């Protein structure tokens, strides 16, 4: 009866499991079988999570900063209408052109229309998860506009026809050998070009410089927008963000509806936490604060600004976010997308980003994806967590991610998505657990049956849905005498009553 540990049994997914759930489990199994993926994930997530710990250990009042950042984000989200209006007015005063997009399709259409109105044939992009969310590259391509990713990781993703698997480190799932082969095969790199990581970086830089010079449009995301100055803040570790936002004559900045802070002082608080949480750096290499497009003339009419785009378009994207406002998931809108919860999550560390299936992986993605898009296609994500709470501990704005995952699980039950065996099982368990005599009697029956089915006190195979347990571990046979029996006996001897 005992199985070799090397041949785990996979219970068949329940018959009513929708195709989306089956696809999720297929992605998970593929990820778990990928040894190279596991090595890459362990290395990078371990390094990043370790960096966060040392960065906060070196910060005298890190916990107070987290409290302050949380207050700022909570206050902003509670008054988002007011701050959005203030931001848009200020940004327009500085010469920005504001656009509001209700859906992902609207956002992509707006960006493509801006490109078409300006006769753009080539756009460069700095890293933006929001652009992934609205599938901007596909929209550009179907409009016949070439788009080039200029963040090194995103460039590798684009050349390889891949998808990012981490919100900060898009190619955390790839090895340097993969990148070397890709550059040789797709871009004609020589062996010297791909000799090591610095050589590959220099090669990508040479390729990208040409694109920067030719591009008529730069598209960027925005880490945080400042309401009272109408400024856009972008942080990055590569110079590509600055080139994207200053060199082409048109700059389009994509802003998630929730990514506002009231003042520059508030921005300062959040920025102290952002890079520390993301990579363990005290500050990112580049922190850019952009306020309006290039001013050709300043007020006294003497000098104009030499650098910057002629047009700065700000596209504020909703795409489901406003539905979260005021809901029991509103707290997820505090998120500043540092990726710390991915790096610390033991589930993410084992399955990587692609297995989640959405644009945003990890604990934050398991809330954001079903939060924005509903549970129909994403019913499994809230369950892909042990609720261990490690994510909550590292979050710079203290989002209670396990609590939000539980809220989504509750929503799943309310929407009747729980498998039948689980609904019945919970009802039976609850009925038994609230009837002490029945519970004790069934415990004795289970002990007898278990002992009969086992030689050494362990069961190697459980029936039905519980067979998931015995794919990789044995189950102990219940003790013949329960704790309650022993307690009664001991307290009776000591002439005490229970």
């Amino acid at each position, binding site marked *: 009866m*005992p199985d070799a*540990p090397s041949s*785990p049994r*996979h*219970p068949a997914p329940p018959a009513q499991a929708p195709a989306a759930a089956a696809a999720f*489990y297929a992605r*998970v*199994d593929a990820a*778990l079988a990928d040894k190279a993926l596991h090595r890459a994930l362990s290395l990078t997530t371990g390094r990043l999570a370790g960096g966060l710990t040392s960065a906060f250990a070196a910060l005298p009042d890190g916990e107070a900063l987290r409290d302050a950042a949380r207050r700022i984000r909570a206050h902003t989200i509670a008054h988002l209408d007011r701050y959005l209006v203030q931001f848009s007015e200020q940004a327009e005063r500085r010469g920005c052109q504001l656009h509001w997009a209700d859906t992902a399709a609207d956002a992509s259409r707006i960006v493509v229309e801006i490109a078409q109105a300006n006769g753009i044939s080539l756009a460069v992009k700095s890293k933006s998860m929001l652009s992934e969310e609205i599938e901007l590259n596909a929209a550009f391509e179907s409009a016949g506009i070439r788009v080039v990713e200029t963040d090194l990781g995103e460039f590798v993703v684009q050349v390889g026809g891949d998808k990012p698997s981490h919100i900060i480190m898009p190619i955390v799932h790839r090895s340097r050998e993969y990148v070397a082969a890709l550059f040789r095969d797709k871009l004609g790199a020589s062996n010297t070009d791909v000799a090591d990581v610095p050589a590959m970086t220099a090669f990508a830089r040479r390729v990208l410089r040409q694109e920067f010079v030719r591009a008529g449009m730069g598209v960027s995301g925005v880490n945080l927008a400042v309401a009272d100055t109408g400024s856009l803040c972008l942080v990055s570790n590569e110079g590509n963000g600055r080139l994207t936002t200053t060199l082409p004559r048109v700059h389009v900045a994509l802003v998630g509806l929730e990514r506002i802070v009231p003042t520059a002082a508030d921005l300062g608080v959040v920025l102290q936490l952002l890079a520390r949480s993301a990579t363990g750096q005290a500050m990112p290499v580049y922190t850019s604060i952009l306020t309006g497009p290039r001013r050709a003339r300043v007020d006294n009419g003497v000098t104009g600004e030499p650098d910057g785009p002629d047009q700065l378009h700000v596209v504020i994207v909703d795409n489901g976010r406003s539905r979260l406002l005021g809901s029991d998931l509103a707290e997820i809108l505090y998120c500043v997308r540092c990726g710390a919860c991915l790096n610390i999550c*033991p*589930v993410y560390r*084992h*399955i990587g980003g692609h297995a989640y299936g959405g644009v945003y992986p990890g604990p934050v993605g398991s809330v954001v994806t079903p939060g924005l898009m509903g549970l129909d296609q994403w019913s499994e994500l809230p*369950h*892909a*967590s*042990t*609720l*261990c*709470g*490690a994510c*909550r*501990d590292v979050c710079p704005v203290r989002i209670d991610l396990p609590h939000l995952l539980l809220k989504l699980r509750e929503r799943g039950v309310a929407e009747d998505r729980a498998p039948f065996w*689980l609904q019945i099982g919970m009802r039976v368990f*609850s009925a038994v*657990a*609230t009837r002490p005599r029945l519970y004790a009697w069934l415990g004795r029956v289970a002990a007898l049956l278990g002992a009969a089915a086992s030689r050494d006190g*362990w069961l*190697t195979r459980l029936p039905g*849905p*519980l*067979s*998931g*347990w015995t*794919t*990789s*571990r*044995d*189950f*102990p046979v219940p003790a013949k005498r329960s704790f309650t029996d022993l307690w009664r006996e001991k307290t009776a001897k000591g002439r005490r009553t229970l």
Partner: protein
Amino acid sequence: MARHTIDVLTRSLDPVVVPSGSCADMIVNHYPELLAHDAAYHDRAVELASRTYELSQFLVDVLGVTDTGARETDSLVYHASCHGLRGLCLRDQPRALLRTAAGEQCTDLPGAETCCGFGGLFAVKMPSISGAMLQAKLDEIEASGADAVVAADISCLMHIGGGLHRRGSRVRVRHLADVLAGPPDA
């Protein structure tokens, strides 16, 4: 179930001591929220939460005891169970008790604060992920060379113990209470 448990545990006003971080976390942190809209039970849930303790928390923080008289000869590694650690901040209490009972014989498991992959129904709903997390934990335990792994939560121990047994490992699992009660054969 929560209401039933509250009925049972509010028959007296004595402290409630729970030898499981996860169960204590449920009563202390989740019952009041679960019953937030239950006029009859919410106040009772809050009252019960205020006098419910995990075992090591009760011994160290309430009774001020770090020496239970037990002296351990086995070499032990400690795994910090998630809900006790993060829900009840059980960081120093179990370690203080183990230090007295086992001294140098007890060390932290490398990655002591990483989840073992149990997660309740997660273990049966997503057995492949849970199993991968468990294997990583078992590798750390076996590499430590300890005789037994100690934790203050029976659910994690059932999970880790089941994994060790499946592997045919010689390492045993022991509950913190079992170590504090004295040598296993005494």
